[in-house]
């Protein structure tokens, strides 16, 4: 089969590789009909996530048709159309029973590597380094899906791939980020980063009752998208001082909740931006947390900072004094996707939200290499790429 493989920093190619096979009784094999490139795939593309190996198959946002089932998968049949959640979860352990699926204790075969880096291990994730299991990903023609009796969601007839594909990651991720803000009537939510997760966080904050949503980015098309589809007020951080603008927009108090949908590769100008770039290049810090620092400083006293953005390791100049002295709450985590798939599918069916607005590029899997470049450099107003084998 054809698969998108990682060979190093900025080196991704579609290669011919062996077809996947059933390795465990609860596995399924899915023939992929649609897959997407996630913003977090760019952290792999840019070489910032450790423990990648040459030849790893990328991709954790995918859906398709079941073509083969392990002996223990009873709830699916060959031919079912399914969307696959990006965290791999057994459904039986302490954390799965608490619906904290991305903390599954039984799905990461490399948990000892993760324990060295993070103290304890999260779940396995498709195509996302050997820290999270080294599972082959879904930017391919076929994928092996472990614990297929727990993860994949059957898609009702009549719904298109594009309507449901983002249930695999970014829609639930944006939604969980907004839900973590515990929005009350009258609340203002500020969102750093208007990439796909930021866009879904903005829409979800609206659905959950936010009075106002403020979008912060420097890409005009993305700010326009946030305004047109999410009714957000825009702050272009290249034109305005974000702290001043937020104070002004919120009557001096600051947003009730702040969402960092940027993560470890924030772009920022000035001395602190240079500081982070130099330290990251010298491997003295693993992440460039400019957006997170600003989200913390901007948040109102007693407010919530919600972090769907991906971080990998150790952060510098982290303003924890601001968190402590101002009673802030930080909520974060890899998304517990399984918990959100069904309710969000219903939301799509009811027409409350149409996830297709995010797609700017439709390309063939064969062109994955080019698609990564386009997405990375936001060429041609690229926000989201969907690949079809």
């Amino acid at each position, binding site marked *: 089969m054809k698969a998108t493989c990682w060979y190093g920093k900025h080196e991704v190619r579609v*290669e011919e*590789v062996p077809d996947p096979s059933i390795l465990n009784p609860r596995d399924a094999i899915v023939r992929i009909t649609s897959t997407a490139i996630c913003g977090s795939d760019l952290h792999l593309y840019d070489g910032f996530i450790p423990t990648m190996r040459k030849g790893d198959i990328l991709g954790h946002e995918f859906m398709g048709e079941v073509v083969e089932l392990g002996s223990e998968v009873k709830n699916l049949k060959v031919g079912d159309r399914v969307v696959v959640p990006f965290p791999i979860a057994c459904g039986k352990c302490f954390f799965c029973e608490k619906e904290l699926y991305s903390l599954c204790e039984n799905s990461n075969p490399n948990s000892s590597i993760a324990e060295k880096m993070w103290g304890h291990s999260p779940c396995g994730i498709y195509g996302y380094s050997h820290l999270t299991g080294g599972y082959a990903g879904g930017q391919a023609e076929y994928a092996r899906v472990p614990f297929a009796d727990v993860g994949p969601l059957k898609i009702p007839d009549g719904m298109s791939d594009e309507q449901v594909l983002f249930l695999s990651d970014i829609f639930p991720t944006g939604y969980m980020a907004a839900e973590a803000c515990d929005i009350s009537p009258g609340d203002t939510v500020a969102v750093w980063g208007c990439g796909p997760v930021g866009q879904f966080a903005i829409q979800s904050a609206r659905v959950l009752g936010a009075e106002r949503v403020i979008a912060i980015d420097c890409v005009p098309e993305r700010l326009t998208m946030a305004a047109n589809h999410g009714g957000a007020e825009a702050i272009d951080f290249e034109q305005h001082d974000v702290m001043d603008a937020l104070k002004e927009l919120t009557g001096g108090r600051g947003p009730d909740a702040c969402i960092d949908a940027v993560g470890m590769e924030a772009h920022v100008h000035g001395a602190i931006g240079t500081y982070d770039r130099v330290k990251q290049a010298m491997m003295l810090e693993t992440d460039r947390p400019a957006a997170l620092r600003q989200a913390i400083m901007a948040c109102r006293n007693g407010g919530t900072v919600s972090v769907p953005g991906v971080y990998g390791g150790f952060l510098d100049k982290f303003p924890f004094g601001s968190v402590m002295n101002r009673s802030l709450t930080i909520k974060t985590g890899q998304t517990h996707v399984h918990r959100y798939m069904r309710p969000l599918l219903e939301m799509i069916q009811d027409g409350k939200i149409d996830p297709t607005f995010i797609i700017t590029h439709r390309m063939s899997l064969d062109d994955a290499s080019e698609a990564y470049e386009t997405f990375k450099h936001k060429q041609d107003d690229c926000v989201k790429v969907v690949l079809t084998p």
Partner: protein
Amino acid sequence: MQTRDRVNLMQVDRWGYVAAGVALLAWGLRRRGVLGGSAGGMAAWLMYQAYTGNNPMFEPLDIRVNRQPSETDAKETIIVEDALTIGKPREEVYRFWRNLENLPRFAPHVLRVRVEDERRSYWEIEGPHGGSVEWESEITRDTPNEEIQWRTTAHRKITNFGSVSFRDAPAGRGTIVRVHLEYVSPAGSLGAAIARMMGRAPQSMVEQALRSLKQLLEAGEVATTQGQSSGRESARTH
């Protein structure tokens, strides 16, 4: 949880350090100069470690030495301990482990276990270079649903002994399985430290065994990526 004994060198290591220290010192005295001076300093450091029995570089590797093991046939042992919570009733976890022929399903490098009788069993273990090693194991105490103790010999020499205990986790959260293993390290603490860094030490095997046991009992299978496809074996890889 035991308090950490500062001693993490075995007798064989300490004599080795003394020998190396004497050799370095002799060389340093002959050579003199900066190089000779640093050799002398190195020698002093090795002798100091031999005297205290503690190499601080082994501490992060969690190397612990028991100088008076309960099995007197083993003069000195390296201690391995680990615990994990498994979300199944104590009786079930005990029963699964007590049927020793289940062990190859979750313990890494255990190829086969043949149970002889209530107490004795024969084990075939994968060796470091593809060969295999045989063990004879004897259960020295068996308290159903609570604890199993064993002692293992190869060619009549003791290789390891230990216990696995099963306790209820609070509030019905399953069973806390705790392994205490002591093994004779033929290459001393240095050998154990090297094996630990290579990921082949008994410490990592015990950790892996407990994790796989948990996966097998809770999820019904051991998570794996062995045999999945990648672009590493593709024809066009360069």
